[in-house]
Each structure stands twice: as C-alpha cells, then as structure tokens.
C-alpha cells in the first residue's frame, strides 16, 4: 500500500491537493482538498445588497456569470420582483456565452493534455509519464483545434461582453434584469459570433470528445462514482419557475429522476478546517469559524449533503435528469455529456435571440426592501450553485454560498462516506506512481474550480456594536 500526494494538481482553477492510497496498481482510497481560504461570505456581510450580485462574482473568474445570476435571483426572491422578459432573455444569453467559453476551455485547455501530446515546448513540456495512445497525426489535428478553441472561447467572452459590458466579471446583471438594451446591431453581431461557435462545436468539439473516448474506451468504466446526480435547473424559460433544463434528483443511476426539495440541503464540517458544530445546518442558519488545528480535517471545502447523501452535479446530471443522455456515468460520459449539452444550449440561444423585443425595458426598476431574505438557486457550468441572503436594516446580515465544486469535491462526511469525486477515484488503475496521470483524468472530467469551493460563514464576531 502506498500513499501519494499530488500538490499542485495543475490544469484546474486554483490550487488543489489530492492524496490517493494505491494498492496493487489501483486507487483504494482518496482525499481531495482545497488549499486556499479567502472567506468570501464574510466579506459579503454588511454590504449594500445592491452590490452583492456584482461583488459575489469575484469569488470565481471562470464562472463569474453564474454567481451574478444566483446573486440576482436571491435578491429578486428577497425583494419579490421578477426580471422583465427582455432582462431574463439577455441574462440567459450572457450566461449561455459563458457556458461556451467554459466548456471549450475545460475540454481543450484542461483535459486534452492528459490524453494527447502538444507541441514540443512549454507549457506542454515536460510531459507526464503516461499511456498516450493517439497517433501523431491525430494529435496534431487535436492541437490545431486546441488553438482554435482558445480563439472561439475568447470570442464567446466577446459575445458575453456585447450584453455584459466585459468578461470575466460582467457588470450588467442586476436584480430585475440587466442594464444593457437590445439593438439590431448587437443582435447581428451576437448571431454572427454564435454561428461561428456553433460551427466549431458541431464540427470539432463534439467529434474530438468522441475521438478521445474511442482511443481510451476503458474510461467508460473508470470514475463512475455513486451515480447520485442533482441539478437545480438551468435557464428560466419564461415567467415563473419553468426552466429549459429542469431541476431534479437521481439516485444510484436511476433512470427516473425525482423532484428536488431545497429544504433537504444541509452542510457539515466533520473533515473541514472549521470549528466543530454538532448538528447539520441549513444554509440560512450555518455558523462556522476557521480552525486549522482540527486533527481529522483535511480540506477547506465543506460537505454539503442532500437528504444526508452526497450528490454530484454538472452537465452529466443535467443531461441525465432531462433524459437527454443516460448512457452511463464515467470519465468519458461526463466529457461527452458536456459537449452534447453545449449544442443544446446553443440551440436555446437562437431561440432567446428571436424572442428579444426591441424597445421593451430590460430592467425592472424597484425599491430595495430594508428587511428580507431570499435564495437564488441555479445550475452553473459545473453543477448546482446556491446563494442565500438575509437582509436587515438595508444591509446584508448573512450571506451563504454553496458552490458546485463544494458538492463535487467535498471531503468525507461524519460517517466517513467519501465525497463524489473521492468515490469516483476508487478503482482507478494507476501505472506510474510518479505521474498519476490517470488520477488527473478522473478529477478533470468534473471540471474542477477551487477558487470558489472554499468558503466560510459566520464567525463569532459582534458587528454593529461599535459606535462613535
């Protein structure tokens, strides 16, 4: 039995540490941890609530839009307002553009170098030891697409900026809609770029994902995990709660998704560097203090549970729950579901563009309420994202964020049950203990993002007691 630690696990957003126990060339146990703590939720307390949707984005540069959308949804619930139809559509377009950017970068920049060798120069050299099975001429084609994908994803951010002013960290999404207005010129520019992206996704991205799967068929059996899938739903399709990707829950690879009940979401900190608290808490009530001396803890990520069980999120969960891809859950399946999902999203984007109503308002002007509370639940690129906000005296009194990577990369829970990624790692065959390239493949198919998985809630500070 050998224990090995990978730090840094590269080609993820922000640092990450993985420890694996290897027996006879197979992973038999795993510990995944986030190693950066910033404490974003504490910073969001006591701010003007109007700022939170814009500020909360700073938690993550790759999926910033997701945090803006969730933040705006939470405030909309708190203020009891609805975005205007145009506002909702443009928000979807902004969010959709960010999906194009994210999915292409996830596959080409983060995942591809695990399977195919790039040009003979940094940053593609030195090369990890591994089983590179793809013939040279196909590798070259894949890397042509690598560079093209970086260009298309930059253009996807250009699409985002048409409505969102800039990217990353767009600035137009507010509770009630967006500030940017649709014009024929913007719609034309957007459509042209969308066509270019669609062409690339259909002609290159989807075939490339299948190419990898073809040369590495064993990865249909690696990284299966619990088969517990979860989605909060994605892209509102009109007034009310209807969404293009509907929310739901799947347990143990079941083909029949069931209803999601957000009240069953809890978090615990048994193996996280936070002061112990006996009970599990709903995000509205959670209170925690950082504590690096805790002996059994190994991560800054907490353990979110649904109905007391770990759940994974992401494209595979959305596609499965919406019955669009149910072939299996594995490393290859996750990558394939992500690519197919992007095509679906692009189709929706054409639909939203058509529905835009020139001259109609994009922002529902409203008065902020001094006391309120609300939750904003949406799926982001890599899974289910929730923002919970409480407002008192016109200020945020409590802010709580549970990110998709917290769900996917959570450490073990009280009963020593592994988090979804830790579970998926079990049984992964390992050839070289020095490179552990296979472990990286399993982890990267979840689209890891650690900047935002790490979070803390309330400390024992007393605010508002200081008067001058």
């Amino acid at each position, binding site marked *: 039995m050998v224990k090995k630690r990978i730090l*840094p696990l590269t080609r993820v957003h922000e640092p990450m540490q993985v420890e694996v126990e290897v027996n006879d060339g197979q992973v038999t146990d795993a510990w995944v941890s986030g*190693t950066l703590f*910033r404490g974003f939720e504490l910073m969001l307390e006591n701010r003007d609530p109007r700022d939170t949707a814009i500020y909360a984005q700073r938690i993550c540069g790759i999926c910033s839009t997701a945090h803006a959308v969730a933040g705006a949804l939470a405030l909309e619930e708190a203020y009891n307002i609805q975005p205007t139809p145009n506002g909702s559509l443009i928000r979807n377009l902004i969010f959709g553009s960010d999906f194009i950017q994210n999915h292409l970068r996830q596959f080409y920049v983060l995942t591809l170098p695990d399977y195919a060798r790039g040009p003979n120069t940094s940053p593609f050299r030195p090369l990890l030891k591994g089983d590179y099975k793809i013939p040279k001429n196909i590798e070259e084609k894949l890397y042509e697409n690598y*560079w093209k994908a970086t260009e298309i994803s930059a253009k996807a951010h250009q699409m985002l900026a048409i409505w969102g002013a800039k*990217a990353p960290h767009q600035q137009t999404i507010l509770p009630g809609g967006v500030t940017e207005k649709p014009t024929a010129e913007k719609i034309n520019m957007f459509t042209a770029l969308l066509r270019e992206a669609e062409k690339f996704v259909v002609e290159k991205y989807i075939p490339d994902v299948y190419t990898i799967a073809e040369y590495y068929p064993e990865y249909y059996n690696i990284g299966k995990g619990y088969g517990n899938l979860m989605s909060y739903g994605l892209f509102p399709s009109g007034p009310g709660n209807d969404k293009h990707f509907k929310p739901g829950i799947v347990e143990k690879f079941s083909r029949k998704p069931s209803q999601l009940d957000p009240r069953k979401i809890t978090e615990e900190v048994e193996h996280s560097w936070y002061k112990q608290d006996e009970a599990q808490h709903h995000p509205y009530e959670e209170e925690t203090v950082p504590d690096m001396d805790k002996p059994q803890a190994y991560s800054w990520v907490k353990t979110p549970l649904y109905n007391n069980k770990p759940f994974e999120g992401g494209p595979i969960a959305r596609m499965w729950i919406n019955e669009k891809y149910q072939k299996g859950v594995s490393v290859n399946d996750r990558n394939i579901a992500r690519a197919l999902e992007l095509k679906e999203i692009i189709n929706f984007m054409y639909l939203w563009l058509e529905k835009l109503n020139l001259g109609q308002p994009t922002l529902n002007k409203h008065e*902020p309420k001094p006391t309120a509370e609300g939750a904003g639940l949406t799926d982001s690129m890599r899974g289910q994202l929730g923002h919970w906000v409480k407002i008192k005296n016109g200020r945020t009194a409590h802010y709580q964020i549970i990110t998709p990577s917290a769900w996917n990369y959570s450490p073990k829970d009280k009963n020593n049950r592994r988090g979804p990624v830790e579970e998926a790692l079990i049984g992964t065959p390992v050839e070289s203990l020095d490179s552990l390239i296979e472990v990286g493949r399993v982890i990267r198919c979840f689209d890891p993002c650690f900047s935002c998985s790490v979070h803390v809630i309330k400390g024992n500070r007393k605010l508002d007691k200081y008067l001058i």
Partner: protein
Amino acid sequence: MLSRREFLKLCMQTTAGMSLARLLRPEILKALDQGEITRSPVIWLELGSCTGESISLDNTLDPDLKRLFLEIIDLRYHWLFIQAQGELAIKTLFKTVEEDAGRFILVVEGSVVTRNDGMYNIVLDRNGQLIPGIQLLKEIAPQAKHVVAVGACAAFGGPGAAYPNPAKAVGVQDILNLKVINIPGCPSHTEWMVGTLAHLIMYGEPELNNYNCPTMFFGKTIHDLCHRRSDYDNGKFANYPGDEGCFYKIGCKGPVTYADCPTRQWNNHINWPVKAGIPCIGCANPHFPDGMMPYFEHLPDIYLPGGKTRIEKIGATLGGITALGISSHMIGSILTGRMGKNQIKGTQLREPNPGEKAPVQEKILDNLEKTEKTSQELVLSKLDEILRYQHNLNIKLMKKPSFLKKLKFWVKKKDEK
C-alpha cells in the same frame, strides 16, 4: 526595432477593431527575428485569486494565445496551462528559477494570504513539506528580472483582502522589498497585461505612476475619457442604472479611477460598463473594493474595528478618499464655470429615498454641525485608527503627508464654520 516613443503611441492609440496586440505583434516578431530580443521565460504564480486574470489572458485575440505562448513568451510555469502536475511541475518551476535567474519575468495573480504564516494558501508540496504561497513568492521573486502583479488582488489586496479580510491578504508589494509593477483591474484587461509584458520584453520597465501602474494605460481618469462626459458637462444625469445620462449621481467611480476603459473597451473593443448602462465600480482604483462601495452611491462605507459604519456617523472628514476625490472634482468644475447653469440645477441632490438613505454632501455637512462628537481631535484620532486598520489605506496614505495635511486643514475649516 520600434522606438519606445512609437511603442507608447501604439499602446495609447486604440481604435475599434484594431487591437493593441495586433499592432505590436509584427514589431515583436521582427525584433525576435533580428535577435534584438529573446523569448522571455515567464513564471505565473496564482496565489489567493479567482483565476480571473488567467481567464482574461486567455481572452487575448491578437496575438492569439498560440502566438503569445509559442512566439512571444516562454510560459514555463502556470498551473492552468502546464501539462505536468505534482512533482514534475514543481521540478520545472525550480529549474526555471535556477537556470534563468535574472532573466525570467514573474507574474503574480491573486492576493498574498498571510494568516497562519500563509498556511491558508498552500501552493505546493516540496519533498513532503507544504509550502504556502507567501513563502514561495519570497523565495523566487528576488531571482526574477521583473515582478508584475496582475489584477486588483495582487496589486493592492483587492477583493481578496476586502473587509474583514478573513485570510489577512495583502498585495504583492506589501510583502516584497522589490519593485513591483502593478496592473490593477478586476480583472486586468488582457491588453494591459500583454502590452506591459511586451514593453518589458522590448524596452524594460515602462513609465509608472505613484502606484507603480504603467501610465500608458492608467494615465487618465475614466471620467476624462468617458463618452458620457458631455452628459456630465451638460448636466444630464441618470437616476437609475440603465438610464441615459451621466452616472455621476448614482455612484460612478469614473472620476477617481485611472484607466483607459472608455477608449480601449473590453473583449476586443466590444463594450465597457458605462456604455452598457452601469456605473464604473472603480475596479482599477487602488482602494477597490472597500473604498468604492456601495457601488451605487457617492460615498463609500467606512470599516472600523468592530464593524462598518455609515459616513454620516463619523462626519464628512472621513468621507473616504473616494468621496473627497469625487466631490472636489465637482466643486472644481462648478467653480471653473465648466458646467452651465442647467448643470448646477441638474446636480441638485434629490431627496434621499428612505430605503436607500443616499448620503449627500449637504446632508453630511448638516450632520457634522449637529453632532457634538465630531470635534477635530476626535475625527483625526478616528482617522488614524482607520488608516491603521485599513491596510491598503495605511500603506498608500501614510506615505503621503500632504494628504493628511490637507485633511486637517479641511477639518479645521469645517469646524470653524
């Protein structure tokens, strides 16, 4: 090779559809070809960051990432891009530090986490020992030819160090006793980063302002360059984001933020916040985000030990540096007659709305007169306290005695009044 003067002209001359990098690339390639410059090794360290600057760098279109990585820089270590992981990645990093000492450019993204000796941000495992970001930075920075801090967090602490700063994060220059070139912004514009790198490779250090930001990008205020500037001069003001008119009254931080967003625009010259109907939030200002919040009001919140307080409570003196900058700008404009009569009418402050309690200059001055406690001494002592507490302000302002002098003079004048 392009002369430095011509280069700067190129950097500052940005028109739609003509990216900075497109103008630069042929020149860089020519210089590389003729052996005037060499492909510079680059080490990119991510500390307490959101990866925003890396993604922003990804957004470079001209030169695209391929040309940047294969022709212009030699990216030895950046954990978003390198193929290696774990031990191999660490070996590559230290090999570059050793072999290219004095040659490589160190780019730092994200704030430096100092809590628990930096253990709240562990970046690598060297022979079984966990190394925090701050230690790695201190170890390799002295070997670098240039140290560049990209993004608000690396430059000044930024969002990573916002109150109450749970990770005790600071900017790179607060840790190193070295010259650090700051490229602020949240995130930094890709052209600010690529342009600065190009300048470093071709001519060495660019001209810097007081905050060590390159003046070619951060030489003028957003307000001066803004295409809604005529609305300001004509007194046409917006009352809600998304409306027509200048956003001055709803908290635009353009007058105190030095950056060329209005002319350069974002993501290949597509758009920028004011054009899209939302006030500037001052992300390139050294006091972002605490000094710039609330985004939709003139005056920033002030954070004090034990909590945050509204500006009215502590009196106009402490109205934050932002408030001082913004209001003095407007007073100046009125005095110099730059604004017409309708402007003065237009700036008449609307009644604070009860949900929002917009703190306005007059109101604060009234409060100052009403409150017994705001004597000069008390105000100044509190100011000291704030300066000490707010790390950024501490570093930036304590070095500027003229600022304190001005402030004392201002307090005295108000008190007499």
